[in-house]
């Protein structure tokens, strides 16, 4: 049977997500949030999730819905501060001790995911040395500079947002939509992409930004 990675709905794409899954969610600053898939994941309702998401509190992302609904046990991110003085759903649950938080420098966060998808278990970085975010981590000196040991992140599910897909799962992105999607798609065992449109002709290799080899399921959600 020829390859066709389309599924009919976001609900169908996420039907087998289990409790306790580590879930990557792409997106940055309003670009590339897979909000259709996030909403469907909330409706599916798996418990004790670990979210790997750059921001736990971004106002344009629906990530907060997973947190508010009580599905999340742990968040790994680089930003966990809500807008304004009032506490966001994340901040409330974190302060109440109901969600564990791992805060990483954004480049370290990205590299942990890249390493996870590239078969590298851990790496040293100069970023964060001597700060609270390096507390308890192994430090080693290379070329007269201290470096911190950081560990790779892998997971069960990645949710990404792209512009177009073809039936093979090859993806293109608009502008800054791409952000964390490439790395996250390499680090998860199941990768689901929501796209604006599916092209029935194969996308030219010159335009493919994420090869279909990394993508398992495609859901068309429109704009």
């Amino acid at each position, binding site marked *: 049977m020829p390859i066709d990675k389309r599924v009919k709905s976001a609900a169908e794409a996420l039907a087998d997500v289990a409790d306790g899954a580590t879930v990557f969610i792409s997106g940055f*600053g309003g670009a590339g949030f897979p909000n259709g898939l996030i909403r469907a994941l909330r409706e599916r309702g798996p418990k004790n999730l670990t979210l790997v998401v750059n921001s736990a509190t971004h106002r344009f992302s629906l990530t907060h819905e997973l947190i508010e609904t009580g599905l999340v046990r742990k968040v790994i991110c680089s930003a966990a501060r809500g807008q304004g003085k009032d*506490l966001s759903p994340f901040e409330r649950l974190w302060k109440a001790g109901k969600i564990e938080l791992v805060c990483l420098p954004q480049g370290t966060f*990205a590299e942990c995911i890249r390493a996870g998808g590239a078969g590298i278990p851990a790496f040293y970085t*100069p*970023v964060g040395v001597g700060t609270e975010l390096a507390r308890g981590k192994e430090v080693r000196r290379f070329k007269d500079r201290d470096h911190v040991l950081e560990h790779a992140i892998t997971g069960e599910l990645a949710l990404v947002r792209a512009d177009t897909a073809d039936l093979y799962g090859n993806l293109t992105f*608009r502008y*800054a939509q791409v952000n964390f999607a490439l790395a996250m798609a390499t680090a998860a065992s199941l990768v689901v992409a929501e796209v604006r449109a599916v092209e029935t002709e194969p996308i030219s290799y010159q335009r493919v930004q994420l090869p279909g080899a990394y993508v398992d399921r495609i859901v068309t959600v429109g704009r």
Partner: protein
Amino acid sequence: MQPLNRRQMAWRAAQDIGSGLLVNLGMGMPVHVADYLRSEADVFIQAENGVIGAGALAPPDRADADLVDASSRRITLRPGASIIDSVWSFALIRGGHIDITILGAFEVAHNGDLANWDMRVGDKGPLVGGAMDLAACARSVWVIMEHTTRKGSPRLVEACTLPLTAKGRVSRVYTDLAVVDVTPSGFVVLDLIDGLTEAELAKRTGAPLAFAPDLRVLTAPALPDAE
């Protein structure tokens, strides 16, 4: 004495940026630097989310939610711009390919330590973003900040009291009162605002100051203050 306002501080920093450089601008005051680059300075502005060559803010009819900078502002692209993914973007930063990053800060110590990511406000969560990556790895790390807090405490200090972003990395600070280099022997004032004596600046500073032999007057054109 008329301290510089926020846009004037950004203007002053912009005058020191040479042509052909790759520059990253932090949230808050630093993003205004892009508005005041010298006309002969052909500069690429990098944003952590992968934009290399951020242009002006997009007018409302051209704003696109997929084209944003690291402050979530809807922007345009300059000629020659490109967009890469977050892994590549931070490899660019960590690999030392950013010539200058200009960051906001709460405190800078005279050994170049930087505190700019966590003010410890109530129960708010942490937000580090790309601050540590930029501070640790850009070739030059400059800071724009007011010389003192609103209550008058120095922000240029012997040792940072707030959580550190990076150790020993800041090389220059632009304040509303002075331009200060951070050297192996501590703070050296390059520019000082008119009407303020060296002793008066020292009183507003929490660590020893040296003054450059060719100390200049800190000036900037009239500009409306930034919000």
